């Protein structure tokens, strides 16, 4: 899987991780994949919910230490 772009949203509090994620998604093409790194625990529920509302797919989600990593494929 190719990651088109990586967004470092570590240390940012809600709503900034999603605000930045949305901007980054706007800048990539359909089918491309964005990696988002966040530390705000609220992202665990909010990023999948946001992705779902926009039709994007979370193709991978994992936690490394305190960092939550999402791979989101643009719809």
């Amino acid at each position: 899987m190719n990651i088109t772009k990586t967004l470092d949203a570590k240390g940012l509090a809600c709503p900034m991780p999603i605000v930045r994620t949305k901007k980054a998604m706007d800048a990539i093409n359909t089918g491309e994949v964005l990696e988002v790194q966040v530390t705000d625990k609220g992202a665990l529920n909010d990023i999948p919910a946001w992705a779902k509302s926009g039709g994007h797919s979370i193709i991978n989600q994992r936690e490394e230490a305190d960092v939550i990593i999402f791979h989101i494929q643009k719809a």
Partner: protein
Amino acid sequence: MTVNKWTAAKVARKVIDNEELFILDVRNPDAFNDWKIEGHKFEYLNIPYFELLDGVEEILPKLPMDKEVLVVCAKEGSSIMVAEMLSEEGREVAYLEGGMKAWSSYLEPIKVADLENGGELYQFVRLGKGCLSYMVISEGEAAIIDAVRFTDVFTSFAKVKGVEIKHVFDTHLHADHISGGRQIAAATGATYYLPPKDATEVVFDYTALTDGLHVTIGSSQIDVNALYSPGHTIGSTSFVIDNQFLLTGDILFIDSIGRPDLAGLAEDWVGDLRETLYSRYRELAVDLVVLPAHFMIIDELNEDGTVARRLGDLFKQNHGLNIEDEEEFRRTVTDNLPPQPNAYEKIRQVNMGKITPDHDEQTEMEIGPNRCAVR
């Protein structure tokens, strides 16, 4: 337009005073449906903040012009963003400072009654979580029952009242919220009591709270009598205060009864629960006023914000006290139970002293409603 900042205390007053309020909750729908700010006359609109990033025009027609609008989110960040966007559209709105985390933490002390010789009984209502704590004060002394973890609220209150905290009780080992009892006792030199049957795994020293234990608060002898009443947990103990009030812990609520499964032993404890509710409590005076450790729904609040009801009335009105058939009772309290409280196993570990999470972790563990009851 200005964006106003409201404290949880201000919102609590609106709940208790039965005022109208329109809440725009910008958390995701799962979080909103699980748990929200409840008010008798509150209206709600739930739109996640991430659906408003491109603008709030679409929701403007849904926001009333003739009511106060409060924007709420988990911590406050997103609610500030949305409130500012609404403000730019010419709407005057407020956001909840600290979000649902602050709401979950807020305690409103309300006087339940004056006791003999200037004594007083206070109920501390934690509206966001549905937890109820108690303080009995009399002649310079105080006892606290089922304190939640915001210990400074209790110690400051005692200071304002000019009383020394002498006794701190937990009716049982709590599973839905973190007890502040042990910390208050450590900070004030008070005695901390816990039912020994709930305390077999605790890793700290405590004084055994056993059936018939009797303490007096102040020289005018406000009585606090312990009554063993198992069922929610095997150690659950009630208190009769001043022969007027029955503190039921998590055994009997206003519109529901305690669930027997949170320590994992529903089948074993259902018989104890039945015995307590249908035999032990039946022997008590019907004029005792029941003061539980929780409420589930806002309708259980009285007009002054307290949660209290005459025992005799509950015998008539509480469904859980009116199931004649034992088998049906067993099914009611063991089948179809509501989801368990958030992180309840971890919370029990904290209350046993086995783990010591930091403040943020404790807040996270306590998110959501208490869910200690079955209706």
